[in-house]
């Protein structure tokens, strides 16, 4: 379970995140939705601990992302935006490398990798070097890599970017599988339909602030819009009227 409590982050004079709070509980899919530059990636980067918040706090399964970042990372699987692979290693070697770094026992690594290769259906190209992989194949391997240590929390930054219909479909299936297994899934997107189809809770972010945090139903009610896209636009206008 992920908890974010009033975090702020600025880059020079740009205030990317200004007081974002929300919760992503276990067994649910939480969508972080917002236009480009709203502060989604920065929020997620703070959560997977490559950045520190200027103010506020965040925790994963009770581990503060600043004070005990190592513990927070241990129970999180992360797919950063545009995650890249090592082109000279095979898909399997890429996954095994991360498994080893996550501290999985050497004797168990092979089995773990095998399981995740099955789960993500990447067997066909698992033993090829990742140089020249399609975007869909790359994302799948990067996801496998992120999930190899069986994390309770999963953070995905725009995972469907550049994926074709089939790849998006299997990504969606995977996210639902994780949810059914009681995992906490938090992912960001700027595509309303995708979020609506998948998420139990939607956090709409604009201008570094939370515009609305509710279920799809709740958002329709709050904004008085039947169409989710209209609701999205209406919600954004609440925080940044211009």
């Amino acid at each position, binding site marked *: 379970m992920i908890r974010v409590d009033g975090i702020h982050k600025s880059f020079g004079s740009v205030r990317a995140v200004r007081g974002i709070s929300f919760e992503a509980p276990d067994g649910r899919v939480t969508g972080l939705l917002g236009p480009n530059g709203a502060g989604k990636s920065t929020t997620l980067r703070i959560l997977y601990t490559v950045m520190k918040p200027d103010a506020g706090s965040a925790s994963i399964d009770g581990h503060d992302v600043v004070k005990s970042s190592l513990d927070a990372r241990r129970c999180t699987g992360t797919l*950063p935006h545009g995650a890249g692979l*090592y082109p000279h290693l095979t898909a399997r070697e890429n996954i095994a490398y991360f498994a080893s770094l996550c501290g999985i026992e050497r004797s168990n690594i092979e089995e773990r990798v095998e399981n995740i290769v099955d789960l993500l259906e990447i067997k066909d190209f698992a033993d090829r070097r990742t140089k020249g992989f399609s975007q869909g194949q790359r994302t799948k391997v990067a996801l496998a890599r992120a999930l190899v240590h069986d994390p309770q929390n999963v953070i995905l930054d725009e995972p469907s970017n550049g994926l074709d219909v089939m790849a998006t479909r299997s990504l969606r299936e995977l996210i639902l599988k994780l949810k059914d297994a009681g995992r906490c899934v938090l992912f960001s997107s700027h595509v309303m339909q995708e979020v609506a189809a998948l998420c139990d809770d939607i956090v709409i972010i604009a201008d570094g602030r939370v515009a609305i945090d509710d279920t799809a139903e709740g958002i329709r009610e709050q904004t008085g819009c039947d169409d989710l896209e209209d609701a999205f636009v209406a919600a954004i206008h609440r925080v940044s009227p211009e």
Partner: protein
Amino acid sequence: MIRTIFTVFSKEVLDNFRDRRTLASALLMGPLFGPLLFAFVINLSIERSLSDVEKTLELPVLGVEYAPTLIDYLKSRNLKIIAAPEDREAAVASVKSGLHDVVIIIPRGYGEQMANGIPAKVELVSDRANTAADRDARRVRNVLYAYNQELAAIRLSARGVSPLVLRPLNIDDIDVSTASGRSGILLGMMSYFFIFAMLMGGMYLAIDTTAGERERGSLEPLLALPVTRDRLILGKIIATCLFMALSLMLSLISFFFALKFMPLQELGMTPNFGPRVVVAAFFLLAPFILLGASVMTLVASFTKSYKEAQTWLSVVLLAPTLPILIVSLLTLRPRLEFMFVPSLSQHLLLIDMVKNEPVNVLHVVISVTSTLLLGGLLTWLCARLYRREGLLG
């Protein structure tokens, strides 16, 4: 701790070994290209300086008919007299244009002046600005001086005066340089080849640690793993060191073989570069590996892209030459304080070894410890910088 570092290390080694192009430039370019080029240049210069002494020099002489004795003398000194341009002006012009390196002009009055015992005029036309031509001119000039001395001695003897009057000084030029010592001058630049090859060997990995990982998009996933960044960077720097050590070893070995194809003995040089010196040189230069790896990693961490990192690192490749160059230009002898300067200390100690001179143990200790300490300090700095957020670019 150790396991994580080893995991990163072995992944980097595997990754680098699979990258053929990188591997070729790391382990072939530096170690092989350097010594080969070196051997080629040395062979060329040796051939030139050897040929100067032995080769018959073609010497155009204008007015051969006026000085038959002088001509005989010139011929006896391995000079081949050939036909000269038709007059004095043409002779001067031919030297000016570079057609001839040196021309001798014997004026019509030579015989008469000689017979009367007044200094007989002989003109030697050369172009002193042309260094290559001047070597031949000097040789001819020396032959003329010698002839001059010989004639003077004969004339004095004829008047009953000892020719020794002309030699108030008996100058004996004693050259203390040994054959190995002379090699040192020529081989002085090879220490830079080793450092260059060493740096080349680790350059790609050093870039990959920061700029490369970032450009590929693999840095963020890596940093999001439950691993402290110190261990990541240590694993990467150790892998960089391994490739640098490999490259250094290969270049020492290739140099060992390259020297066999250089006719150094003909120049009276016997560089002390046997298998034992090769091993000693490896351990002498090895402390520089950590320093080089950390400097390259450090510089690359400030760059935005792989390309930019390559540009900056080519400057780093040249940096170790600077102290060597300064000391070589000023021809300074090894001093204690020089041993605190990395690259310079290795250079000076290596030269001592190649010259077969006793190597000062204190100097070695200072060189090794100061270079290692600096390398350790910079590695620590790399680790510090690896923690900052700006790393993500």
